[in-house]
């Protein structure tokens, strides 16, 4: 805990509160707004309790359908690698880096997340 607090103090510029733990849906996604230096962005937040990395944030915008729907996709894994499937045309995106599995040229942006007690923080650095 002391380590986390120390981190908070050194990185207050980039770690921003996003939502609460109670907003999350285990093994699934929710959408949230965040302010980045480039402007407001809709992010899809996935919570996978029990995984090595429990929290992921990628673009909520689906580049294939041009609709904001990624948080509503099914979370799964392809050979152990967590992915979300777009609910519209079913392309898969890797949660750790946003890479589209079906199309090398397409990648969602992604941001680190972490818990701070009941808060979920996002690193917009």
């Amino acid at each position: 805990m002391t380590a986390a607090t120390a981190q908070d103090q050194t990185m207050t510029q980039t770690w921003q509160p996003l939502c609460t733990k109670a907003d999350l849906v285990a093994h699934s996604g929710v959408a949230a707004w965040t302010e980045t230096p480039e402007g407001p962005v809709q992010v899809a937040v996935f919570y996978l309790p029990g995984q090595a990395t429990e929290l992921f944030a990628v673009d909520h915008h689906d580049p294939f359908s041009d609709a904001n729907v990624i948080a509503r996709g099914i979370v799964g894994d392809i050979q152990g690698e967590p992915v979300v499937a777009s609910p519209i045309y079913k392309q898969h995106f890797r949660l750790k880096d946003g890479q589209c599995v079906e199309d090398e040229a397409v990648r969602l942006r992604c941001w680190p997340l972490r818990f701070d007690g009941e808060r979920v923080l996002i690193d917009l650095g």
Partner: protein
Amino acid sequence: MTTPTPQDLIIIGNGMVGHHLVEQLVERGSVDHFRITVFGEERHPAYDRVHLSEYFSGRDAADLALGEADFYATHDITLRLGEAVSRIDRENREVVTDQGRYRYDSLVLATGSYPFVPPIPGAETGQPNRLVYRTLDDLDTIRAAATDARRGVVVGGGLLGLEAANALKSLELEAHVVEFAPRLMPVQLDDQGGTALREKIEELGVGVHLNRATTEITAGDDYRYRMTFQDGEYLETDLIVFSAGIRPQDTLARECRLEIGERGGIVIDDECRTSDPEIFAIGECALWDNRIFGLVAPGYTMARCAADALSGPFRGPEPAGERFAGADMSTKLKLLGVDVGSIGDAHGTTDGAISYRYSDEATCVYRRLVVSGDGKRVIGAVLVGDNASYDTLLQYAQNGIALPADPASLILPSVEGAPTLGADALPEGATICSCHNVTKGKICETIDAGACDLGAIKSETKASTGCGGCTALLKSVVDHELEARGVEVDHSICEHFTHTRQELYSIVRVEGIKTFSELIEKHGASSTPSLGSSSAPKLGSSSAPILGCDICKPAVASILASCFNEPITDAAHVPLQDTNDTFMANMQKNGTYSVVPRIPGGEITPSKLRVLGEVGEKYGLYTKITGGQRVDLFGARLEQLPDIWSELIAEGFETGHAYGKSLRTVKSCVGSTWCRYGVQDSVGMAIYLENRYKGLRSPHKIKFAVSGCTRECAEAQSKDVGVIATENGWNLYVCGNGGMRPRHGELFATDLDDEALIRTIDRFLMFYVRTADRLQRTSVWRENLEGGLDYLKDVVIDDSLGLGEELESQMRHVIGSYECEWANALDDPEKLKRFRSFVNDSRPDPDIIVTEERGQLRPA
């Protein structure tokens, strides 16, 4: 090392097989080790006897000749034509002709066969009417006899006889065929095939006389000869060609006391050696395993085996020489322009053989498929009138390829516009994915280029990555094509379970597993690390629990709902659902949803209709009538759904499951209540059925319809379950489908009373739920169901598996545990939390932009 002296090799016979032997020896480079002499009784060098009848339609001896004219000279082979061998002197290893004696070290008999002429008074040897059809000289004789002739008869309705009849037709004679057996081509065809061929041939103006044994030939009144048959009937003709079978030409072998079969033929072993190891016999004169092979292909095989054996001493032990192991007598030919094909056990004489027959009397097309008793392999076939499927069937038979679930599809015609057949029957040009315009041919190409699983084919062709409507068809085509190429198809539902949907269903029921996490923990496939060699041991215990995917999760969610019917929005189930089930609405292309309340049977009061109008207006929804007789309200944003449903439920609506793989609608016509023609209350029955089965989750969506009379205004025959009123009750149709691959429902039971109708549907639906594949509609399920409709009737109506009570009780459980999912969710603030477009902002998604068209809103 000195070059050994070449050995003397003599080949007696310069027919097709004898010639092929020489070619094979040349190919093996063995001609250097032999001084080869070939004796041919005829004056022509080897020619194509298979196409002999073309001699009368324009081809001459030179056209029919096999190989280049200087072939023998080029390879220093002595060809002695017109020089008949009269004797073999085995003691001195010499061949004797009227011109001399020739020494041999090795001797090959390729003497062929001669036509059998039945012993008929008036057709004795030397008679001018005793014509045969085998050699070019025979044809010259026939041509001479045809001068001034009007009519010709062929005795023998086998393969060669029909060829001969064709030859007579080419000579512009009125041709007739007289056959002793009750059908044409008795060896290759069955009765129906023979009948179809007969009709075809008669259409071409050839007279066919079956069951006729000629007892006497005398001078005729109107024609040169009169043939009298065993029943006293007669046929007059100007010339008679005998083509009643062949006999092995084994005279030389007999006289030098080589072993001969009981009914003729020179006995050979697998190397084609006769009882004298220095003497070989090949082709139609040879008897292997007590059989004569009267086709050219087995003769060529024998020629190869003999060439290997002869070349043996001059080459290394590897690879081992070919040995004769019998031959497939399958044949495909055009007789008188009619396609005829015969494969393997055409008569289905194998123990337990099962036959499928297709017969089209209008065009005289007949196909028979003979399948092994275990239903796994093609063992024979008969084709008349159309050989299009010959190559495919031969592939199945020769390579033991596993049959499709419905073997009949192999011989059924593919009907344009309604391809209700399995993937294999789709033509190459059939479009599988219309979004990306991917044809079956393209898929095959991709497979042939190395793609060997569904994923690879999808990423290569983009098939099924558009609307996804072709997913099931694509999988079926890919599975089929892979199987056809001998690739073992993995039926695992996905990488997380090595089970099929049906297996998972059994596990869930037998073990009473109620959650996905429990199922994947107990039965999931261990995940493979994405990096490094898969053989490397996994490090530590950190291997994260596998998550499942968008294939297994919804499939298991559906199975759990079918079995236990817990609300799909419960915390344990909600992450498994597709977005439509999660939010109990249908996602549209801009991320908004459409809302479809249930309107059972399509019956709705004016005031409830008004409620729909008011809700649509209030929330700015685009409104459209659906094909299932209800109203679809489009354009609802995620956060609007609970409010919309609160209002609808308050006015007495409930969820319509338009989003689920579950019962959708029961469409109905107005029936006897209003209609002049109605014989039953179709609306009442439709409402009852819709309320009974609403909420039943199944492998795919299910649609019903009920028609009040045979005019069928509800189009029940295009539904998964179709009910049509009769004077006495209800007729039940099952497994129909509209959509991409329309299929007529099949009549399943007739004149049922209400109770029997409902019991039958209960069982039918639950049996489908239990045994279908994931996302498999009843139509495809039915097509893949081994045993077909009869089997389905046995199980559902006659309860042959003793499952009836279990299926009914399971249905009772689903019906008893029904609750409106929307009402359930609205009562639970935790569940409603999900219906927020953004968890940290209540404003709507600004990217959802609409425009007005024809007085309504639509996505911009």
